[in-house]
């Protein structure tokens, strides 16, 4: 646990020499506890005191790498306070006890989900393979190998150190889950030897805390907290309490990412699993293990994740260019709007609902909404004309009708001047009116 102001004060020389720039040692100690100044500001600290304090100045939550992905490193409980840093990952649940046919089918189904949404690849990043204590090493290795053939990052859950060692020696694995109060030493040895992230669990938070402290004392800080169990209530409580203790109460032992297995909480119930995955995306699950991953699961869950992990200071942008909707071709009418992702989604959604073929032109407007970018000079007659030229719209599209967002109706005249070949039409103010507008226009 991090040191409180008073504990730090006890380690200071207590001379009130002011060399650190503070009136007293207590004032200095309080600031160090706040993280407002570094302990190095005091030139008189003993090496022993410094060693004791170094832990208190570490970030509250460690960043753990799983393959190419980073987890943890969060500093706030809610995104509006600053931002969330590392998005959660999804894992597909497999068990070595399943039949080969089942495993093949689940893998094949999940591998189909691989698409792009606003410049982000959406796919199952990890495969979680459960190997029960009674399973043989051969079977475990065979299933993990099969999973590894997908190229995704592999998480193996196995509580028997010898069995785990055989498996991770045979197949490249990124995370080994299964350390607890009873086996942590042996599991730690396996994970350390192979450089794996070690997943650790406990029957309750106290036991978990103790085990993590022991692992840290043994030099392992490459951990992930396995929020185990089949109780939804307990798992949710643990996910929140662990994150809160790490960020709000400076409980260093809990400053690690988490893994939650929703297949275990709602076996076979995919709709409830989707609800749980949504809950844990918002509330502190770092790897979410699901019983399956289809488009029905992925579309809402990945969309939600993309939303929640957007930096509130940086609006989400879509790539500028031509988006041909409802089978639009070179003879279809053009409509232009800004590259703010939300605008794009709402406008494209409404156009799709209308069924009218439209070439939606997305201009580079800095990722702001129509009015904001217009006010900032990023969405003007000049930038629209420049966009049409740079993206060679006139050579790609024969139609010469351009629909402007109603909110920038004032631009009509100027755009007509800059683009004399085009017929400029003012569209509705709100996207929701687009369906009727387009149907009437047609």
């Amino acid at each position, binding site marked *: 646990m991090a040191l409180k102001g008073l504990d730090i004060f006890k380690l200071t020389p207590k001379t009130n020499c002011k060399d650190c720039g503070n009136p007293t040692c207590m004032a200095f100690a309080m600031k160090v506890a706040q993280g407002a100044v570094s302990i190095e500001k005091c030139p008189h600290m003993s090496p022993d005191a410094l060693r004791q304090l170094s832990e208190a100045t570490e970030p509250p939550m460690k960043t753990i790498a799983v393959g190419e992905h980073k987890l943890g490193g969060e500093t706030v409980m*809610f*995104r*509006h306070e600053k931002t969330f840093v590392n998005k959660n990952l999804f894992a597909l649940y497999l068990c070595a006890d399943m039949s080969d046919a089942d495993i093949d089918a689940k893998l094949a189904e999940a591998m*189909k989900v691989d698409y792009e*949404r606003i410049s982000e690849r959406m796919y199952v990043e990890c495969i979680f393979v459960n190997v029960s204590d009674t399973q043989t090493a051969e079977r475990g290795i065979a299933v993990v190998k099969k999973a590894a053939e997908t190229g995704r990052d592999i998480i193996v859950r196995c509580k028997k150190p010898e069995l785990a060692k055989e498996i991770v020696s045979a197949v490249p694995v990124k995370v080994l889950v299964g350390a607890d109060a009873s086996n942590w030493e042996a599991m730690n040895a396996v994970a350390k030897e192979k450089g794996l992230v070690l997943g650790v669990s406990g029957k309750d*938070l*106290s036991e*978990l*805390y*103790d085990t993590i*402290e022991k692992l840290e004392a043994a030099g392992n800080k490459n951990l992930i907290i396995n929020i185990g169990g089949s*109780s*939804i*209530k307990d798992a*949710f*409580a643990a996910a*929140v*309490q662990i994150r*809160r*203790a790490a960020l709000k*109460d400076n*409980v260093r*032992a*809990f400053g690690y990412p988490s893994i939650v297995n929703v297949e275990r*909480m709602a076996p076979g*119930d*995919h*709709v*409830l699993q*989707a*609800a*749980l*995955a*949504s*809950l844990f*995306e*918002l*509330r502190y699950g770092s790897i979410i293990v699901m019983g399956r991953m*289809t*488009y*029905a*699961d992925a*579309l*809402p*869950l*990945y*969309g*939600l994740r*993309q*939303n*929640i992990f*957007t930096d*509130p200071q940086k609006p989400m942008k879509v790539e500028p260019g031509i988006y041909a909707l409802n089978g639009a071709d070179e003879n279809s009418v053009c409509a232009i709007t800004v590259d703010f992702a*939300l605008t794009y*989604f*709402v406008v494209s*959604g409404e156009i*799709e*609902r209308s069924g009218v073929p439209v070439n939606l032109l997305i201009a580079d407007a800095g990722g702001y909404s129509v009015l904001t970018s217009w006010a900032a000079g990023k969405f003007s007659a000049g930038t629209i004309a420049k966009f049409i030229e740079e993206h060679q719209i006139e050579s790609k599209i024969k139609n010469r009708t351009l629909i402007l967002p109603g909110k920038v109706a004032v631009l009509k005249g100027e755009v007509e001047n800059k683009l004399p070949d085009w017929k400029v039409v003012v569209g509705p103010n709100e996207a929701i009116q687009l369906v*009727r507008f387009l149907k009437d226009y047609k």
Partner: protein
Amino acid sequence: MPFTAKPRKFSAGIIEIPLGVGQNAVTIGGGNVLPLYYFDNPAKNPPAVGVEITDTGVEAAGLPELAAYYEGANTPAERAKKAAAMEGADFVCLRFEGADPGGLNRSVADCVAIAKEVVEAINKPLVIAGSKNLEKDVELFSACAEVCSDKNVLFLSAREENYKTIGASCALAYGQKVGAESSVDINLAKQLNVLMTQLGVQPQSIVMNLGSAAAGYGFEYVASTMERVKLAALEQNDTMLQMPVITPVASETWSVKESIMPESDMPEWGSLEERGIEMETVTASACLASGCDAVILRHPTSVKAIAALIAALL
């Protein structure tokens, strides 16, 4: 050294608001912990789940399960009965889709007759949602509030433009509950509550509708607005944001591409119904996690899953 989690209770709390009357009443709000954090303090009232029906019928194209559920229910009252009987349903929401002057333009008198039949037919609280046409809703709500005067109905919603008339008729004249609707704008949400209370509407009669979005469609704004509202209510004891929050999830999620694109157009996406259910369920779960005290859903499978989720967290 044993670890003890520090419970985080607030001395401020969310207002409790009963909907419906007698044995059929359901109370939303209450509690003094962050959304769903029942490990900090047991739930006062769990979040409620409502089932939405419309006056116009069941939009079930491509949704065989939904169509089957309502099979044989040919009137709004019959559909309301089925909705009330849905596993996990706490209340029914009747949406007057057909009242929109830009659509069917059903007369206020016809709507009132439907509202009366529906409220009589069900043994659960009723929420009445309007046509989203500002002028029509004023008239519609006032007339419906009168015929349902002893039923403690919630009306969705009053907006900045029409809160005076809706507040005066529904809440002040007929003692009903009123939704205060803003579009994902926390300052306006607070302002509307201030204005409504200045009009004389008790905070105990106001339910906030903060606006929503489907998962993936700017939901970050929804989540942050709800979270900030709850933090202001609890941490800053902001009495103008302590009203419970209701979110009509279904009307947002069943209109996005993922929930309407037929399987024939997107074969790799699979079953349309399953996509719609999961979009609705994932969005509802995210709303509850962010701070919503009641959600309104459409599909029986989503209702069941969300009710199960809530029950599991208690």
